[in-house]
């Protein structure tokens, strides 16, 4: 089968959302192909939640379009939600309902529901079945939300900061479950998160939002190939101007050496000029994110 634009699981074009005078999203366009894990990154207030609300048909964008599986999400929300599992940023199930009641409620709404898998997951997560949702810990709420989202065997999983406020163990359990799902079913995943270290091993493609605009939309491989971090011991040979052809995004230099983030070319070429004290490495996602959207993003002389 030829994969075209129409077969993209998620397809946004020129999306624009405005709240009064505040432009929350501006001309955002991206797509997520089947089986891909798309990480949506951005600082607080960058527009991630607005984008996800538009994606799920909760909110109508002022401009642009949002399609899921080739269908308009605003007009076909109900049909599309049979194929989509959602974990919200804030656990939003009714506080008085117990996990058992929530499972029963959700199971009654879908044509297929993996009852055994859901029970097994909750047992693994050690979520008590008879405790009201409002009294569960934050980690248990997230785990229950993930269980409910995976119950119908969704083709697309939309996760809005699912590890927000979770301890390291609960965070690891959520990612393990996600990896398991990806390995077993190849589900397409769109995940908005601040947990850059956690998502780095899972994501295929990354989108970075800043001020409502999509600053970066590229595969993780492309980003790793494009952005490098170089660090060097103090020596007189390397000047800031030597780095100019490599698109420096940030240079920090001092008496003990320095480091720079470069966005162009292959900085290993510098090894010849700078000698063995120069280290070139792929940029970790977190550092790339901070460099691109952080306030310290500057080129120092």
């Amino acid at each position, binding site marked *: 089968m030829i994969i075209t634009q129409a077969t993209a699981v998620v397809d946004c074009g020129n999306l624009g959302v405005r709240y009064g005078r505040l432009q929350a999203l501006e001309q955002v366009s991206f797509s997520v192909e089947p089986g891909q894990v798309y990480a949506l990154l951005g600082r607080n207030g960058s527009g991630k939640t607005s984008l996800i609300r538009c994606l799920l048909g909760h909110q109508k964008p002022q401009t642009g379009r949002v399609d899921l599986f080739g269908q308009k999400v605003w007009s076909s929300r109900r049909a599309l939600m049979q194929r*989509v599992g959602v974990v919200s940023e804030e656990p939003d199930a009714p*506080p008085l309902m117990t996990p058992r009641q929530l499972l029963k409620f959700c199971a009654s709404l879908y044509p297929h529901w993996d009852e055994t898998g859901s029970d097994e997951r909750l047992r693994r997560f050690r979520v008590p079945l008879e405790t009201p949702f409002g009294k569960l810990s934050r980690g248990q709420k997230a785990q229950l939300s993930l269980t409910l989202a995976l119950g119908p065997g969704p083709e697309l999983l939309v996760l809005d900061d699912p590890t927000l406020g979770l301890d390291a163990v609960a965070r690891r359990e959520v990612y393990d479950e996600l990896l398991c799902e990806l390995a077993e079913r190849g589900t397409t995943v769109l995940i908005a998160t601040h947990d850059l270290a956690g998502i780095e091993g899972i994501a295929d493609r990354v989108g970075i939002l800043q001020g409502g605009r999509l600053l970066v939309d590229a595969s993780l491989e492309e980003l790793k190939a494009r952005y490098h971090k170089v660090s060097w011991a103090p020596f007189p040979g390397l000047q800031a101007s030597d780095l100019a052809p490599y698109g420096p995004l940030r240079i920090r230099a001092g008496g003990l050496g320095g480091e720079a983030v470069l966005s162009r070319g292959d900085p290993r070429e510098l090894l010849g000029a700078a000698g063995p004290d120069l280290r070139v490495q792929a940029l970790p996602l977190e550092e790339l994110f901070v460099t691109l959207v952080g306030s310290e993003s500057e080129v120092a002389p």
Partner: protein
Amino acid sequence: MSTLAVFRREWIGRRNTFLLALGLGCIYLVMISTDSGTQTPRDKATLILLGTSLLLPWAVAALFGATMVGRELEERRFGFLLNQPIRLGEIFFGKVAAGLAMAMAFGLLACLPSFLLGGLWRQLPLLEAGRLLGVGLAGCLVLLLLFHAVSIQLRSRSLWLVLDLAAWTAFGWGIRALTMKLISAGAFDGMLRLWLLLLVVVALGLGLAGYLAVAEGRADLQRGHRWVSATLAISLGVALLLGWAQSAWVLGHLPARPGIHAGTARVR
């Protein structure tokens, strides 16, 4: 099917309400059985039934309407339903049905002990009971829809509130003018029919506005408010227009009164 699921979810989510109703029922029972000198248990039960059988369900319906969607939107919990494959109409009607049933059940639970033990069930004819139930249900529906709409309007904190206030003020003035006109002509039946007509049209408008707040507003409180305001403004306008037409018809078909005849004769 999904409407039923939403209905059940609302009941489970607010089950504590029934404990409150049972508690009230027990308080009434104690009141009936306590000796207070002049009043018999039946008198007391009658008083309780008259005083609370309508007020309690109406209060519960108003509270339910004020929280059924507005509070979930404000607390960002409405997404839970929107993320499920449920039609927006099923969400709205499931919630409305749950609210109505809950309000009526609350009233029944609270009043039933005193109604049965006070011996009133022997006195109240079936037709009267049915009429009471009908009035109670209709009142619950109107109040639930009204408070749902008002809750959306207030919680969104947008400038559209000015339009809402203007529309309701104009509507109030319109009703007053039409009512005064009918009263001065002595058309009291026509006045009652006018109010009934206005109530029906406004109730329909509230229902439509409430549905559109969910269907078009979804998780966007401001957008929901705009739909509620626009729909209500139109509905109030239509209600006034129909009310004006009905009043004109009533006034045009009034039996001739002596004073008017005399005046007419003098002109001729």
